[in-house]
């Protein structure tokens, strides 16, 4: 908690990031008090530009863009959060296990991980989504994205565990008879947390980008409003050609806001928590 307070005080980037994040979260929370349901159509006159009654205009299907966007933000955040949870859990478990156990298990797992890193995800995901078309819910999209994003982070967690394994406290724990799993969870996990935070945020960004890509290609659950599906429907109804910029401009602007917010927060947090940069800052201050 003191970390957050210090960051807010001393780092302008963090302040901007936190402010943007607050805006995004408020928007998502507003979706619970929206006057229209997420899939209702023809509730307002269509194709109106932004005005006092319709803050961000209306779509061709007769939905209010502003309230639609609150649903979109909420759903996209849920999808990304679920994907990150699944992907990073697999990554931490596999990476820590491989790093700690070592030996042949480690070699096999690492070779497997390397293979999965190289395999291009988008064509695979397109293949899967194409076959499942019509049966996709937005939870299954989240699961799919999560299942494809564990390889690269698992390598990083493994290298962290490798260095932690040589520490004295690990030896003490082993000699005291602590079980392997317990050592990983109790002793090593706290050290992984700063890295995990920054890593989760980048996983978040990847999941959001991927969800948008899939939806725009038409391979997602098109009836649920997410940022990607909003863009899909906007292009479907030719809002670009008809100069109805509000329908596709809103999701684009919001997605930029979300990613910049998360990115700023993650970089400032990781630079702050990394002891080496902290030492460097202290050295610079002392020298100057």
């Amino acid at each position: 908690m003191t970390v957050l307070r210090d960051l807010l005080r001393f780092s302008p980037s963090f302040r901007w990031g936190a402010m943007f994040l607050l805006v995004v979260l408020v928007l998502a929370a507003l979706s619970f008090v929206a006057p229209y349901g997420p899939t209702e159509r023809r509730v307002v006159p269509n194709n109106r530009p932004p005005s006092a009654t319709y803050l961000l205009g209306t779509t061709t299907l007769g939905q209010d863009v502003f309230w639609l966007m609150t649903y979109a933000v909420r759903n996209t955040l849920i999808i990304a959060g679920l994907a990150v949870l699944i992907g990073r859990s697999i990554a931490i478990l596999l990476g820590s296990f491989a790093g700690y156990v070592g030996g042949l298990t480690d070699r096999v797992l690492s070779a497997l991980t390397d293979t999965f890193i190289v395999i291009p995800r988008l064509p695979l995901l397109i293949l899967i989504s194409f076959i499942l078309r019509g049966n996709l819910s937005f939870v299954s999209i989240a699961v799919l994205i999560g299942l494809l994003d564990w390889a690269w982070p698992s390598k990083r967690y493994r290298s962290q565990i490798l260095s932690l394994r040589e520490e004295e406290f690990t030896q003490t724990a082993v000699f005291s008879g602590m079980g392997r799993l317990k050592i990983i969870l109790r002793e090593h996990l706290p050290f992984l947390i700063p890295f995990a935070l920054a890593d989760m945020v980048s996983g978040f960004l990847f999941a959001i980008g991927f969800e948008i890509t899939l939806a725009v290609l038409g391979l997602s659950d098109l009836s649920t409003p997410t940022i990607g599906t909003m863009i899909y429907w906007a292009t479907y109804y030719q809002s670009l050609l008809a100069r109805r910029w509000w329908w596709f401009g809103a999701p684009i602007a919001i997605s930029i806001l979300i990613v910049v917010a998360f990115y700023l927060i993650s970089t400032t947090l990781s630079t702050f928590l990394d002891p080496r940069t902290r030492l460097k800052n202290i050295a610079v201050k002392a020298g100057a």
Partner: protein
Amino acid sequence: MGLLKSYILPRLLQWLVVIVIGITITFIIPRLLPGDPVEQTVRRVSSTSVTDPRALEAFQNAIRDMYGLQGSPVEQYFRFWARMLQGDLGPSLSAFPTPVTTIIANGLPWTVGLLGTSIVISWLLGILLGTLAGYYPNRLWSQVLDKVLIAIYPIPYYILALALVIVFAYYIPIFPLVGGASGRPGLTWSYISSVVWHSFLPALSLVLIGTAFRFIIARALTTTIVSSNYVQYAELAGLPKRKIIFGYVMRNSLLPQVTDLALSLGALFEGALITEVVFSYPGIGFQLYTAILQSDFNLIMGVTIFSIVGIATAVLIVDLLYPLLDPRVRYR
């Protein structure tokens, strides 16, 4: 001999393993998932007219043969490999009977040209700018560049490409909206210049993201290298700045960059896919997109397999270049 055994052979083995596993996954997925492409195709065709059930059955068998779905899964697997090793990826269903390989071959030069130039430009530019910015971190241009590129980096690629196309091809119509080139194909100046003109925006979007990524990495690497003792010694010894930056700093930051290049080739291919869809650029990605729209199962499988093989090979090539750059690998 030592190098061959300890370095090249494992890499070749890994290349094979990646391809085999990747293709096996591509093979397994359609058979595991609940949708049935044969059913979908038959339903689509027979929904518009009444057909003789015997004709339908013959049609179903023909489709099944084209998809390679007769026999037990093991038989299918081996037939799959046999066909593929002969270079036969089946006929494309929407452009029947053009073989999938022909369609891929048509789109390949466009994708490779676009990707190739974008990778080269963004890699060089990113490393150069990143190293310079890392070496002179307190100059104004370095800080401005830093903020700008960090702002560009997290933007999802699709959004960036869409923004570019909206602004520069629609609202301010400088660049063409669709297509790879205009005019008759040939080695004429007008055709070649139209190719360059059409590829400018897509290449720009790829280069922007690529450069931002490499810039951030290069700058972080340079900051660590700059504080090392051999660089400090060179500075104290009064060596010309150019020699220090290029000979000492950049040389040492190249190695992680090369590894990163290998690993990000996959991401670049995904980026090229989205680029081609947004800019309607006639490469492999665009073929994949039209295949999705037309439910052309064979083409989708073909492009997926092709991209797996292509990326694995590119990674192998970059990995094999590694000993040329890092003497420590050579003499281990």
